[in-house]
């Protein structure tokens, strides 16, 4: 079973962090990613550029409407994701709780609809 793990955090809060703090967090992320590679749970994942770089596209009446920014403004922003393989939700939650941002942001765990179902 695959789960998409969405990592939300406050960009405003993260902008206030020092270089040293950010460096430590990146290192911790690298360690976490390596650990889920080794355990065979990792299927993919990336950090995202901040929402200020986001663009939203809609097709309406056959016409493309492009707007600046994310679909919805929220207090916490999507900052990255992992796609993981886990046997059930408990295993997925056990992985999610180890993500560094879980300590200050929020981690959303969403089951992926399996193919052919």
């Amino acid at each position, binding site marked *: 079973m695959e789960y998409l793990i969405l990592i939300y955090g406050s960009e405003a809060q993260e902008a206030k962090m020092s270089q040293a703090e950010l460096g430590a967090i990146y290192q911790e992320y690298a360690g976490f990613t390596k650990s889920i590679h080794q355990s065979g749970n990792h299927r993919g994942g990336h950090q995202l550029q901040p929402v200020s770089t986001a663009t939203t596209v809609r097709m309406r009446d056959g016409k493309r409407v492009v707007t600046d920014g994310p679909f919805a403004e929220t207090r916490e922003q999507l900052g990255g994701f992992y796609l993981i393989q886990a046997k*059930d939700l408990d295993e997925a939650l056990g992985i999610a709780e180890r993500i560094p941002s879980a300590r200050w942001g929020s981690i959303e765990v969403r089951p992926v609809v399996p193919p052919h179902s």
Partner: protein
Amino acid sequence: MLATTVRLTGDFDLSEEAVQDAFVAALEQWPRDGAPASPYAWLVSTARNRVVDQLRRRSRFAEKRTEIEQIAVLEPSEIELSDAVMVDDQLRLIFTCCHPALAVEAQVALTLRTVCGLSTEEIARGFLVPVATMAQRLVRVKRKIRDARLPFAMPPREKLAERLDGVMLVVYLVFTEGYAATSGKRWLRRQLSDEAIRLGRLLCELVPQNPELRALLALMLLHDSRRMARTGQDDEIVTLEEQDRELWDRRQIAEGVPLLEAALRQDASGQYALQAAIAAAHARAARAEDTDWAQIARLYEALLQKQPSPVVELNRAAAIAMAESPSTGLALMDALEAKGELAGYYLLPAARADLLRRQSRWREAAEAYGQALKLVTNDPERRYLSRRLAEVEGLQSASGAGIIH
């Protein structure tokens, strides 16, 4: 049976239907062909086969097929049905229903539906929501269990304590919902309390010697022992002080008190143990005036340390008023009112009114009862407050006329 069928098939919804079908099949076949050697195994394997048929019919994909065939290969004799296995299945079912990934209200509803076997209609009436709302809540929660793949398993050892806390909260909520009995039909509410106590007993058997669980069961038994005395004719509220203690259920007290004492010897110190100790202090008093209010005030103080809440603070103030003097209690309640956290909560003016009445401050008491009446939302409480208001108003005019001082 449901628990075992869910374990064998991994499907909540289909298992529920299949278990019912298995019973129907038994009613048809057993009288005709004679009862099987192992009726329980027969029922479980029949239910399992129904689920497998359903899954086969639904699934057209090879990948799923293998999974289904794995379920189907077990012969009835291979389905392990020792007591230990059935206990484990029950526990797995409870832990799945009370999984923290589910909303608490959904956990409560699902536990009542699948562990206690209450119908959707009964649960809806118990919680005063329309049947359609409850049915939808149950459909949604079962869908999440299936689609997010919640495990039908015991939590790992390191998560057991945390998860057991969640299970106890569900049992406690079922109980308080039944015990509050403030609205809705009384017998329906009673069913909720009874189910909560049954669940508490079951958990105490499944997870033996757990002090907090024992304290929770003791708490429920001790509160429930007062059920008959808590309401008079026409569902009138009878306060603890005015209750006929002859109506208290001595059997429940005789079971609850030693259970609590055993839990306390095992160092139970959580909120259920403290609440149970408060209930036990009341249970020990033969008459209202024998109540050890100083001890109760200390217990509320300890509860406040554990879980700071303005409602607990109000209870502590009321206990101190009884242990020391109404004026000490009133001063504490005034301070609580000034903090504003209980604004809109009818029990604060009601508790103040009670203390003012005890001090024969009729006019102020009448005012406070009036405030409480504006905030109260359920009928029996409203009738109680109105009765008190009429009483102090009568005393106020009598004292104004120089009859009573």
